[in-house]
């Protein structure tokens, strides 16, 4: 396996991005002048303190939200509406599932517009539900599942869609450590097999380093880029081997140090 991949042509570019919610006295500046690029097939992790604007950033990249200034370009074209081939796993996963659809219908819903043959549709649903270990819950309804299971349904839905760009907003926040490790490896597997470009927001420093090619560290609110750290660790990554490698430990410490001043003096925990 190669240690680092060849430089990729840029797929996505965020330039001068600013977003302010509201106006006048109640205005909240969520993002202040963000600039970064994401290469084709790259895995980018985004970390930053709570409330710094990560969700807002993903909403702007997905085209759901018009930024108040700046542009997001995909394939060299500015995004004005939701582009094709993009999927977003919402942080608020429970609200993004449809309670009147069964688990398998929820996963199937985005596929309906892809005009796939029936057999392939079935196959994708089965495959992605199996990947998140929910094949037994296919006929259940979201409200019959635990929070972590609902989160996995939302992940399965995005995976079955096989987007070109996959945006994930703290997708593993409600699952236990073992499931989390499994899901990390699952996402890496999907990323490699279908050469997806992934923007992955997380609060977990280990996770951000373990998964990605680059870690983007954001400042406290309003978000701007503090550092853009390349992760040169070899692939395929392994939960035990990679995480005990010297390079990993060094990178992890570097990210943690970068986040610390950004967090200010009020907290001193080990995670963000």
């Amino acid at each position, binding site marked *: 396996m190669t240690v680092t991949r060849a430089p990729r042509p840029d797929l996505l570019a965020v330039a001068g991005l600013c977003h302010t919610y509201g106006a006048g006295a109640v205005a909240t500046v969520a993002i202040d002048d963000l600039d970064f690029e994401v290469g084709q097939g790259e895995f980018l992790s985004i970390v930053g303190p709570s409330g710094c604007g990560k969700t807002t950033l993903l909403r702007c990249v*997905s085209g759901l939200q018009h930024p108040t200034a700046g542009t997001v370009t995909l394939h060299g074209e500015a995004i004005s509406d939701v582009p094709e081939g993009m999927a977003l796993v*919402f942080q608020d996963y429970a*609200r993004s599932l449809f309670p009147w659809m069964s688990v398998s219908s929820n996963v199937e819903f985005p596929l309906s*517009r892809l005009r796939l043959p029936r057999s392939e549709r079935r196959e994708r649903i089965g495959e992605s539900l199996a990947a998140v270990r929910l094949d037994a819950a296919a006929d259940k*309804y979201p409200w019959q599942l635990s929070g972590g299971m609902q989160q996995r349904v939302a992940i399965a839905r995005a995976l079955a869609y096989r987007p070109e760009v996959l945006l994930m907003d703290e997708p593993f926040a409600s699952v236990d450590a073992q499931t989390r490790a499994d899901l990390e490896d699952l996402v890496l597997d999907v990323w490699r097999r279908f050469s997806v470009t992934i923007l992955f927001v997380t609060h977990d420093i280990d996770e951000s380093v373990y998964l990605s090619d680059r870690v983007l560290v954001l400042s406290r609110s309003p978000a701007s880029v503090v550092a853009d750290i390349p992760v040169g660790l070899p692939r395929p990554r392994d939960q035990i081997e990679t995480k005990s490698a010297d390079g990993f430990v060094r990178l992890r410490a570097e990210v943690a140090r970068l986040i610390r001043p950004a967090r200010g003096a009020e907290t001193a925990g080990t995670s963000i």
Partner: protein
Amino acid sequence: MGEAGDRLTRGLTTVRGAASELLLRSAVVVAGLLVWQLVTMAIESAFFPTPLEIFGRVIETWFSGSPGTLFLTEEVGRNVAPSLMRLLSGWLLAVALGVGLGLAIGRIDWLAAMLGPIVQFTRAIPPPALVPLFLVLLGIGDGMKVGLIAVGVLPPILLNTIDGVRSVDSLQLDTGRVFGIDRRRRLARIVIPSAMPQIFAGLRVSLAIAVILMVISELVASTDGIGFGLLQAQRGFRIPDMWAHIMLLSILGLALNSGLTQVERRALRWHRGARRRSEV
């Protein structure tokens, strides 16, 4: 509350509670009927026949036909059928119009801005006040009655549909947009299902109002129908017949309501489950 009362409330909350609650409720109904029977027997008033007598009259008048006509009498065809026709055509017309218009107003902002105040105003009109207007406009025929019912029950359907559509979770719509679902399919697969519980609430209210308007319109100007039969009985001093008509109307109201409840139960199974979950 005494010890027995405590035990009763505790009993109602157990798993067996559902069965005992049903038992308790039917016991109350039976007791009520019994009191009614005893009181009317005691006072022997010509204006208050006993429930058994009224019920006998209901059977005799409408449900004593031959097995070939499902035991329905000719009287059903003469007076009940026209009433039901008016009721259902008026109500269904309002459902189609109210849900369709409600979806449009709920989804299209400029339409809401334009029509919102008018819609709010119509809510304040007591439906029976429309009777004279419809008499003047449409005469005394079926058109007047169907029109009256349709217009009279429109506001609750319309308002509930608009409310339901407006309260669709924005994140669910965003989910649809992200996955490239077009407007039409978002309407069919997200907006309508999500608004369905509220739409059904409107349907239930409107059905009750529809029965009221049907009776009023037949009392005021009609040559057939249950309301007409009721009026005839009163004019002929056939007091037991009068009571029988009143009882038939309540049976009809109950039957319509439970029919709608059945449909709702089937359509909204997910909603009851999801709500029960969120209460925990």
